[in-house]
């Protein structure tokens, strides 16, 4: 299927960034009963795609993302990232961006970005250089010496994105990264994220509650139902790129958003 000429022993580059989820289930065991959080979820994400997961609260979309990050193990089924399973977090393959609160408040922006490199003992000079590049990519050049409490909500999320990208993983997972931001900042950050995505060619999996954000950002939207979490629809968003504000009021946009909304209303 893929050309074999440029295959390296460890990671076939052609599959770098591909995500495969096969028959994955997740059961939370409590004292009184077992709760099925995810039931037989399968999906395939090609390298470089921007995929958004939406669904009502409790549909297990964040759980699915945590399993892709190696932060949680599925009860059944398999997940592979770039062709290999992910039994524990691997920042070389997967970067994760959380909600606002996950920057270390006692570290400066650049120390936060360097954190994953410091964990594996990368020399200081190399760390600093990589952190500067990552901060530049997210548009925060010159803000490296600030502490998180000296940055706005949007800037903090830029730092988080820089931290997720600093080891240059082919996959970036984002768990409601803009949920805590106000609407205007959220729109700007969406555009910024698309710019960064276009510049780096990462595979992005993005969890959100906002249907508008989902359609605006995505190549593909995966709609999930609640308890047990199942995939109920998988839409291709054919809108041209770059996405613009005017598209939000177009018919094509509205039709996609309506289709997602009908699924969610049914299952909620």
């Amino acid at each position, binding site marked *: 299927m893929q050309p074999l000429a440029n295959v390296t022993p460890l990671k076939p580059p052609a599959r770098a960034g591909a995500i495969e989820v096969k028959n994955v289930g997740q059961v939370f065991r409590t004292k009184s009963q077992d709760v099925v959080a995810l039931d037989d979820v399968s999906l395939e994400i090609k390298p470089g795609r921007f995929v958004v997961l939406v669904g009502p609260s409790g549909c297990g979309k964040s759980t699915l993302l945590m399993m892709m*990050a*190696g*932060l949680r193990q599925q009860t059944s089924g398999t997940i592979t990232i770039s062709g290999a399973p992910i039994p*524990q*977090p*691997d*920042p070389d393959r*997967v970067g*994760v961006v*959380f*909600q606002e*609160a*996950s920057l*270390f*408040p*006692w*570290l400066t922006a650049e120390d936060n970005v360097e*954190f*994953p490199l*410091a*964990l*594996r003992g990368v020399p200081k000079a190399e760390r600093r250089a990589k952190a500067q590049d990552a901060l530049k990519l997210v548009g925060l050049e010159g803000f490296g010496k600030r*502490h*998180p*409490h000296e940055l706005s909500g949007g800037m903090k999320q830029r730092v988080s994105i820089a*931290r997720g990208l600093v080891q240059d993983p082919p996959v970036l997972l984002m768990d409601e990264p803009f949920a805590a931001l106000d609407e205007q900042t959220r729109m700007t950050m969406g555009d910024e994220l698309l710019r960064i995505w276009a510049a780096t060619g990462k595979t992005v999996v993005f969890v959100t509650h906002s249907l508008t954000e989902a359609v605006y950002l995505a190549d593909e939207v995966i709609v999930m139902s609640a308890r047990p979490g199942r995939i109920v629809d998988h839409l291709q968003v054919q809108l041209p790129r770059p996405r613009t504000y005017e598209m939000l009021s177009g018919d094509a946009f509205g039709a996609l958003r309506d289709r997602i909304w009908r699924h969610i209303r049914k299952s909620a």
Partner: protein
Amino acid sequence: MSAKKLRYLIVIGLIALWELLPRTGLIPELFLPSLSATLMAGWTEAAEYGHALAVTLYEVVFSMAFACGGGILLGAIVGSLPRPRILIMPMVSSLYAVPLVILYPVFTVWLGIGSESKIAFASIYGFLPTMLATAAGIQTIDPQLLLAARSMGATLSQRLVRVIIPAAIPTVLSGLRVGGALVIVGVVVSEMLISSAGIGYLISRYRTILDSPHVFAGVLLVLFLAIAFNAAIRWIERKAAIWQTGTRAAQANDEITSGAMQPAT
């Protein structure tokens, strides 16, 4: 007028009142000797006060080492492991409500009336709030931070050193502040009750012979000890916790220092 200036004025006013009220005879010298008389009394017996201060300081330093070292260590264990927490916390919390000073006579029976019984009493006295604050500090660490560290591949020991400890510093420091202040109280009170040396002993002895200036000279000395301790803690806080603005730990910190954890004396 700025609040700072006003504060200085109030302090200066109080000092002036301290001098003036007894001198004009509005308050009898027995109840409140004038500031100058107090300083003079301290000065003439400087050697005696110096020796007493050395004894008290020695007891305070050792008690603080035991109280803070033990409090932080046990607090960290109790705060991070659920099982010991369930076993120990209710006990410690109810123990905290007991006026521990009732145990002091028992300590003198066990350890004599020398420094050992003071150190033992003050250590336990300061230990409880330090431990409770540390445990609370570790528990209030934002789980998102630990999750983020894990997602970046942090091992257990890396999470402890690079996340848990720095995140807990502000609350631990506020525990030290309360615990350390209680250590000073514990040492001085135990010296006042049963002992043969130290500032508390001097205060107590001069009181029995109604020598007010000497009593107040001792009180002043304890006051300076407490102020010096507070300044030292502030300095450490500034050094260690410049970042704490707006974190959950800082909020927990406020609750503790704002009186949620007042000791039962």
